[in-house]
């Protein structure tokens, strides 16, 4: 199930969907949903299953219901590319919910600002709350702890008997937490941890703190 961690005396709950809930501010953080990606591919002649995108909405609803936050903040790459039918589904979804919405603009978010305004979603290039900075791309700024996305972090785990497994993960370094990609059909980038990094892997319906060993050279 979920895993609670503490950063600068604030409490964050890591959810196996890839979302993070900030208890003190009653805020839900979700990164890299990439809505519209499936339809974008289909429009360009790649015949993905039409209803593959419904999974994203099922998971969004599930995690939003679970925390029932007062604000949902998307850390960028909410909508994959140009407008398509998935936006309408998303607009209906947003309208049906009670939370306030904020989007930190990511490199994929190329829709016109009016589009976000039309569903009552605030947009910003970054957000600062106390000692915390929320951006799309990883950033190391003096005096801040950053929450970001963009990378789609994954971790490679190995063990005896030549076992090996790649899992999506929350990747925490000294002043930064990179969230895994929330969306279906997004893929992952395998990280290369250094000493002191903390990795919380998503293993099915669990979030697990990964045991770290020094690399054998």
């Amino acid at each position, binding site marked *: 199930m979920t895993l609670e961690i503490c950063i600068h005396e604030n409490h964050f709950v890591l959810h196996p969907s890839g979302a993070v809930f900030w208890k003190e501010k009653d805020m839900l953080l979700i990164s890299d949903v990439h809505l519209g990606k499936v339809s974008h591919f289909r429009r360009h002649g790649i015949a993905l299953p039409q209803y593959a995108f419904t999974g994203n909405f099922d998971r969004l609803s599930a995690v939003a219901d679970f925390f029932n936050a007062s604000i949902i903040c998307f850390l960028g790459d909410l909508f994959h590319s140009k407008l398509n039918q998935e936006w309408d589904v998303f607009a209906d979804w947003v309208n049906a919910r009670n939370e306030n919405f904020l989007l930190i603009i990511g490199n994929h978010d190329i829709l016109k600002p009016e589009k976000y305004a039309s569903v009552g979603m605030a947009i910003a290039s970054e957000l600062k709350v106390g000692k915390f900075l929320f951006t799309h791309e990883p950033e190391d700024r003096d005096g801040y702890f950053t929450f970001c996305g963009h990378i789609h972090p994954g971790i490679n*785990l190995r063990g005896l008997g030549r076992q090996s497994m790649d899992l999506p993960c929350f990747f925490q370094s000294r002043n930064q937490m990179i969230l895994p990609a929330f969306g279906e059909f997004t893929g992952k980038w395998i990280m290369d941890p250094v000493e002191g990094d903390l990795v919380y892997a998503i293993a099915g319906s669990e979030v*697990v703190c990964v045991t770290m060993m020094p690399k054998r050279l």
Partner: protein
Amino acid sequence: MEPVFKRQRKESVVPEANEFLIETFKTREGYHAIFYPFEGRFVHEALASLLAYRISLLEPITFSLAYNDYGFELLSDKEIDMQSVIDNDLFTTRFVHQDLQTSLNATEMARRKFRDISVIAGMVFSGYPGKIVKAKHLQSSTQLLFEVFRDYEPDNLLLQQAYRETFEHQLEEGRLIQSLERIESQNIVWKQCQRPTPFSFPIITDRLRERLSSETLAERIAKITAAYMKES
């Protein structure tokens, strides 16, 4: 070749025509079990996943599979109870078709087959030689495509084809049954060795491996770790 045979005889045996050799030993990598049917790579691929699947029914266990033309290996992080493998008659030809089908779903063979199929079907465009790919925004990995189809459209024809081709072209069920029948008529010679034998060496060093597990994700994660670079 004489030095190789000599070394092989020292640690294990060189099997006769009526013998089926099984070697087990432990190394830093884990517990190795090597079987030598001498039936060629394709049959060994099928045999390995079939046997791994059947053993995984006896107890929760995770295997890494390797094979060459002489034999195949089941590598795991705990010792296989070889006596129970022999006693339970796991080389039987009964339920072969069904077991093979199930083991195919448990390994990643079809996933690999899907790679070729999705390229031919135009799902991924890797560009012309020497030309820059223009459709970069449409790039995705065949792995990702496989998962989307598996989760949202399991009856998709391309996905079905991946399973069918693995089964019909790669696993050679007919020859598999023949070799199982032969093994049933052979004497099983199980050697518990102290160290890797010359016969086993090319197999245990093979890096292209299949995996099969009957353990839960949580059980497996508890035993594996991530590696970090030490800051110098």
